[in-house]
């Protein structure tokens, strides 16, 4: 556990950060098209999306409402699969011209050397790629034979870049849990410096597949793996910030759990909706760039994100650690919102 003094300072820090609510991180759901059909997709993306890709000019017009961007402000291109858009380099250059940074989250399937170079030279500074197991289990989850070979190539390119802030994310499920030491060795051999592990939340297509979800014992085994491998110190291995994990907090991450959705993290979704992280229930949408000013919405709205006392109900109502957790990751509040979809601490 973190020491009481650190915990107290952290609580005050979190309050100050919430009051300040500086927008540091803006997702742009630039497409909902996807070239894969992953079993765990929370967005339930398809090759042909219901919404057309948002024109660059519309996104930039919204971005231009941010009059004084934070020093570390960054745009995260996400999807769907962003690489299906041919104009990312133009978007990237435009973002950089405004003194902002940008990066991308990708399945890596189309990340070849040519695209790697053009994105890098358009000022891409950060990249996350998804690897969901060794060959068989990755291809299974990605629902496409040969996708492992593609991500293997993409990881090699990104890990060798001197410039990129790069990490690999892995969704842990029943079929790849036993492979974690092998994945670790593989990533180490590739020169990867940072690896984040996730569980899969039961939304989108993931809702209907029990193999994708870890039992309580399996979840604990994953956290034990992270605890053990963090001690090696040769790769930054951590549990993602998806949820509060009680006594494991100081063992699996550098800092205590802090869901920054709507506090420092915003998003522009495919139809122009303004929200926090893209996987948050769409009933929490705060506005739309086609009729609202992004900066104004960010300043004046997002109340449910910045005062989370409303989550103190259902499973959370009698939790002794609510003060630390504050209702878990915001993306866990879906549907009728009586309780979080997943209580990570409750699994331990």
């Amino acid at each position, binding site marked *: 556990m973190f020491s009481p003094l650190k915990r107290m300072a952290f609580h005050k820090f979190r309050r100050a950060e919430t009051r300040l609510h500086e927008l*540091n991180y803006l997702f742009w759901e630039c497409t909902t098209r996807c070239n894969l059909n992953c079993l765990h997709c929370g967005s339930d993306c398809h090759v042909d999306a219901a919404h057309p890709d948002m024109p660059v000019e519309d996104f930039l017009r919204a971005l231009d409402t941010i009059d004084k961007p934070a020093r*570390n402000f960054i745009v995260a291109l*996400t999807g769907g699969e962003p690489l299906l858009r041919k104009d990312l380099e133009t978007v990237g250059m435009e973002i950089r011209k405004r003194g902002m940074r940008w990066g991308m989250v990708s399945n890596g399937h189309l990340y070849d050397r040519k695209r790697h170079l053009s994105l890098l030279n358009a000022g891409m500074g950060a990249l996350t790629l998804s690897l969901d197991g060794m060959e068989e289990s990755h291809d299974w989850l990605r629902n496409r034979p040969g996708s492992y070979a593609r991500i293997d190539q993409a990881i090699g390119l990104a890990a060798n870049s001197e410039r990129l802030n790069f990490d690999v994310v892995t969704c842990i499920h029943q079929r790849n849990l036993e492979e974690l030491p092998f994945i670790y060795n593989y990533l180490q051999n590739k020169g990867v410096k940072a690896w984040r592990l996730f569980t899969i939340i039961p939304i989108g297509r993931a809702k209907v597949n029990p193999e994708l979800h870890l039992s309580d014992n399996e979840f604990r085994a994953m956290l034990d793996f992270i605890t053990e491998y963090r001690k090696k110190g040769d790769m930054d291995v951590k549990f993602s910030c998806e949820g509060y994990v009680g006594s494991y907090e100081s063992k699996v991450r550098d*800092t205590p759990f802090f869901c920054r959705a709507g506090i420092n993290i915003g998003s522009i979704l495919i139809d122009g909706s303004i929200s926090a992280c893209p996987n948050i229930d769409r009933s929490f949408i705060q506005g739309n760039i086609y009729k609202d000013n992004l900066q104004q919405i960010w300043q004046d709205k997002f109340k449910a994100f910045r005062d989370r006392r409303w989550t103190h109900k259902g499973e959370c109502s009698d939790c002794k650690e609510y003060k630390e957790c504050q209702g878990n990751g915001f993306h866990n509040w879906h549907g009728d919102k009586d309780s979080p979809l997943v209580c990570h601490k409750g699994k331990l």
Partner: protein
Amino acid sequence: MKRKQIKTLLGGISFTTALFVFQACYGMPQDMQDDVFIQGKVVSQSTNLPIEGIKVESDIYEHYGVTDEQGEFAFYTPWVESLRLTIEDTDPESAGSYVSKDTVLITPEHELFLNIALEEN
């Protein structure tokens, strides 16, 4: 401003800089690295016409731009105290061949515009 200072102090007491370099759970890491934006135009010394297909490359691995029909290029490269640029004709077959310049040394600002004239072979 005062609020920001208090936040920084509290963050420092609790967990040093790690708290300020967060990443969204389904996002990528943040990026705090310094870059130089290099753009410019390459023309023929003798005709003053733009040259297409000239590669302007920094000495940092993988960072370069290639001129388009207007002779223009643009790219980002990590900021370093002194940057060496190589200018090379990568397609001598198409629009004549030009003498490469391979030791252009500059102390970069964060943004540079270069006008480059190349001599024909």
